[in-house]
C-alpha cells in the first residue's frame, strides 16, 4: 500500500537540513508520496525507514514470471478491481493439464505447443502445460516431465505433485532450466516444497482448502520465511460461486487492504468433466482475476473462444487496437482492381482484409482515420462521414493508380452513397455487403473474378 506524505514524514529525520533540495522534510515527504522524487536524495534516512518505504512502494500484487526464454509469461502486478478504473495489465496464462501416466502425453504436449490462432493481427497461443503426477514413483514422474519437455521444447510448465521427491527428480533432470511453476505447497508439505522450489529457483504455488484464506496467509508467511519470493496463490476450488467469492476477496485484500501475504497472482483450476462446463469456469477465471488458468480439454473451439476473451478483457479501455490509416494493397492490385473503403479499428480492418484476401481478388483497401472506431460507431460519432470518405480518397493518391473511378462502401453506411457521390464528382459509389463474410461473393459476382 502506498504511504501518504504524512506517513512518510514520520519516517524521516525531521531536521529540515535541506540537503535533499527541498526546504523541509515535510515538503520532501509530500513529493515522495506523489512519486516526484527518490528516497535516496536524503542521505540521512535510516535502514528501518528504508525497509518500510520499500515495502510500501512495492506493487500490491507481485509480478511473477513463469517459464524461461521466449515463451515465458508474466502475471500479477494488477492495480484495479475493475477494468474501467484503468486497465488490466498481465493476461492470465492458459495452461493445459496432462496426467503423467497419459500415454498420449507427448502428442498432447506437441499440440499445445503448436496451437496458434490469429486475431486482429495478433498471434494468440496457449501458454503452457501442467504435468500432473498421476501414479508412478519419482523416477516415473521425472521421465514424464522429460518427455513433455522433449515434445514441447521451451513451453512453460506447471509441475503438479504433492511429492517433493518427485518434483526434485524432475527439476534435477533438467526441467529447472525452464523455471516451471511448482504446484503446490500445502499445510502438510510446505517445508519440503519450499526447499525444492528454492533449490531450483522456481516460483511456487501454495494451496489451501477452499474457503480457508487464513490458511493461505499462514502458508504464504511460512514459505516466504523459507526464502521463496515468487508465489502463486491457489485458494482451492469450490464451484463457480465459491471460486468467484474467493478470487474477489483475494484481489480486494491485496489491493484495498495491502495484505502482503496475499499480494500474489491467483491460480484457477478450471478443469471440469466436459469442455462446455470447463469453458464456463475458465470464462469466469478470465473475467475475474485469475493469473494462471488450468484446463483439461484441448477443444480448439473452446480454446479459441478463451484466447479471444482474454484478448478482449486485457485490451486497454482507453486505446482501442488500431491500424495505421492509409492505402493497403491486398494481393498484387493493379489499375483495374476494386477499391474498398473502411475504418482503422483493427477488428474492422482485419475482418475486411481477411475476407478480401480470402476472395483471391486483388484489391485496394483504403483505411480512413476513424480514431480506431468501427464503421457504425465511427459513422454515429461523425468520424466516417461523406466528407471524411472523400478526403481519404483524395489524400491517398489512389486516383493515379487505377483506371476506373469506382469506390465500394461498407453496406452498413449505404445511406451515405449519395453524399459521397457529391463530394467525389466523377466517381461511381457502389454499396458492398453489410458483413465482411459476404465480401468474397460480392467481389466475385460484381467484379467477375
Amino acid at each position, binding site marked *: 500500500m502506498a504511504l501518504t506524505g504524512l506517513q512518510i514524514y514520520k519516517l524521516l529525520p525531521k531536521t529540515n537540513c535541506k540537503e535533499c533540495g527541498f526546504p523541509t522534510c515535510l515538503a520532501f515527504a509530500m513529493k515522495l508520496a506523489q512519486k516526484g522524487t527518490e528516497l535516496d536524495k536524503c542521505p540521512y534516512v535510516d535502514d528501518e525507514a528504508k525497509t518500510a518505504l520499500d515495502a510500501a512502494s512495492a506493487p500490491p500484487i507481485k509480478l511473477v514470471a513463469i517459464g524461461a526464454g521466449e515463451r515465458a509469461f508474466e502475471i500479477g502486478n494488477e492495480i484495479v478491481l475493475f477494468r474501467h478504473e484503468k486497465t488490466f495489465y498481465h493476461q492470465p496464462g492458459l495452461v493445459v493439464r496432462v496426467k503423467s501416466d497419459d500415454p498420449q502425453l507427448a502428442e498432447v504436449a506437441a499440440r499445445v505447443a503448436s496451437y496458434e490462432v490469429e486475431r486482429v493481427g495478433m498471434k494468440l497461443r496457449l501458454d503452457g502445460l501442467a504435468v500432473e503426477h498421476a501414479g508412478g514413483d519419482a523416477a516415473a514422474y521425472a521421465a514424464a516431465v522429460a518427455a513433455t519437455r522433449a515434445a514441447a521444447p521451451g513451453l512453460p510448465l506447471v509441475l503438479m505433485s504433492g511429492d517433493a521427491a518427485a518434483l526434485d527428480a524432475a527439476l534435477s533432470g533438467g526441467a529447472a532450466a525452464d523455471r516451471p511453476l511448482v504446484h503446490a505447497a500445502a499445510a502438510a508439505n510446505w517445508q519440503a516444497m519450499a526447499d525444492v522450489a528454492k533449490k531450483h529457483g522456481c516460483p511456487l504455488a501454495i494451496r489451501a482448502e477452499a474457503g480457508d484464506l487464513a490458511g493461505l496467509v499462514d502458508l504464504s508467511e511460512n514459505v516466504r520465511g523459507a526464502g521463496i519470493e515468487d508465489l502463486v496463490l491457489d485458494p482451492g476450488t469450490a464451484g463457480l*460461486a465459491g471460486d468467484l467469492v474467493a478470487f474477489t476477496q483475494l484481489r480486494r485484500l491485496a489491493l484495498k487492504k495491502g495484505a502482503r501475504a496475499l499480494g500474489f497472482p491467483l491460480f484457477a483450476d478450471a478443469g471440469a468433466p466436459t469442455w462446455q462446463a470447463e469453458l*464456463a469456469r475458465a*470464462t469466469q477465471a478470465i473475467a475475474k482475476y485469475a493469473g494462471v488458468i488450468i484446463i483439461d480439454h484441448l477443444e*480448439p473451439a473452446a480454446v479459441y473462444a478463451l484466447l479471444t476473451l482474454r484478448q478482449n478483457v486485457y485490451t486497454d479501455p482507453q486505446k482501442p487496437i488500431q491500424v495505421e490509416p492509409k492505402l493497403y494493397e491486398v494481393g498484387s492490385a493493379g489499375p483495374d482492381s476494386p477499391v474498398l473503403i473502411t475504418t482503422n479499428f483493427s477488428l474492422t480492418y482485419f475482418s475486411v482484409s481477411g475476407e478480401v484476401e480470402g476472395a483471391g481478388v486483388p484489391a485496394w483497401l483504403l483505411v480512413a482515420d476513424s480514431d480506431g472506431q468501427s464503421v457504425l460507431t465511427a459513422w454515429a460519432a461523425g468520424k466516417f462521414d461523406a466528407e471524411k470518405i472523400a478526403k481519404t480518397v483524395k489524400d491517398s493518391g489512389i486516383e493515379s493508380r487505377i483506371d476506373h473511378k469506382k469506390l465500394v462502401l461498407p453496406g452498413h453506411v449505404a445511406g451515405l452513397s449519395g453524399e459521397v457521390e457529391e463530394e467525389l464528382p466523377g466517381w461511381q459509389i457502389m454499396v458492398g455487403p453489410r458483413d465482411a463474410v459476404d465480401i468474397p461473393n460480392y467481389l466475385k459476382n460484381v467484379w467477375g473474378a
Partner: protein
Amino acid sequence: MTAVEIPVEKWSGAVREVTLGSSYGGGTRTSTVTVGGETSLPFLGFEGALPHRPALAVEVVDMKPADWSPELVATWGDDLSDPANWAARAVEEGADLIALKLRSCHPDFGDRSATEARATVDRVLAAVGVPLIVYGPGTADKDNEVLVAVAEATKGEQLALGLCEEKNYRTIVAAALGNGHLVIAQTPIDVNLAKQLNILISDMRLPLERVLMDPNTGALGYGLEYTYSVMERLRLAALMGDAMTQQPMICTIGEESWRQKEGRAATDVPEAWGELAERGVAWEVTTAMTLLESGADILVLRHPGSVGVLREALDDLTKGA
C-alpha cells in the same frame, strides 16, 4: 492461525425487481419470471442479497430465418418454420421465457400487417405458459404500429416490449402503460445514455418496476469488452444508489454471437477455430458467462446447447444464495 478480515462493501442501493408475465388481470401465463433485487455485485452472496437468479430466454422468430447459421438451422430443424412449435420446444430445452421477434413485419422481409402479428403472438401465447418478450421488426414506423397493436391485444399478459429507444420511446412506453406491459430500454453502450432514457421513460410515469435495460451487447471478439465494462459501471452505480441505473439488464447474446463469422462459417476457416457446432456454442456461452459476471439478469440465447450449459453454470453460481 491468522485471522483474515474480509473486506465487505456496504452498498446503499439495490437493483429493482421486475416481473415478466402474469396470471391475472387478463394474463394467462402459467409461470412468471422475476429478476433483479440484487444488493451485491453478481453472485457475491457474502455481502448482499441475490433474491432471483438470472433468467434464460430463447429467441424465436416468426418466419424461418434465411440468414441464420447452418448450425442453428440443423439444431432446430422444422421447428424454425413455426413459431408456436419452436417456442414449445424452447421451453422443453429449458427456456424460462421466450423472446419472440416479429421479423416478418419488416418491409423488406414480408411486410406482414399488425393484425397478422397479433395472431402470431396469440399462437405463441397459447403454445407456452412462460412469459414473453416481443420485439418489433426493427424499423421505427413498423415497430410502433406492430407493437402498439400487440400490446393492446395482450392486455395484462405483462409482456416485455422491445426495443424502446430514444427515437421511439414515447409510443412504446404509452403502449406498455395502457396495457400493463414492460419495456426494454436500449441504448448504445453508454452509462449516461442509459440513465437518460430511464429518466425519459419514468417521466412518462411508467413505473421503473416495468423497465428492463439493454445496454447493447457486443459479441465475444466484436466489442464484448465494451459491454462488459459498461455493465460493470452501471451495476456499481446502481449499488451506490443511483436510482436511474437500477434496472435489471437484458443482453441479446444469441443474436450477436451467432451473427459473427465464428458462429456461421463451417468451412474455409483456420483449423485452430475448431468445428462450427462446437465453435458457435463456445462463442455464445463465453459471451453469456462474461456478461453474467458483469451483471446480466436476462440472457437471450439461440442454441439449446448453450441453454443447457448456462443453466448448469447458474445452478452452480446461485447455490446457497
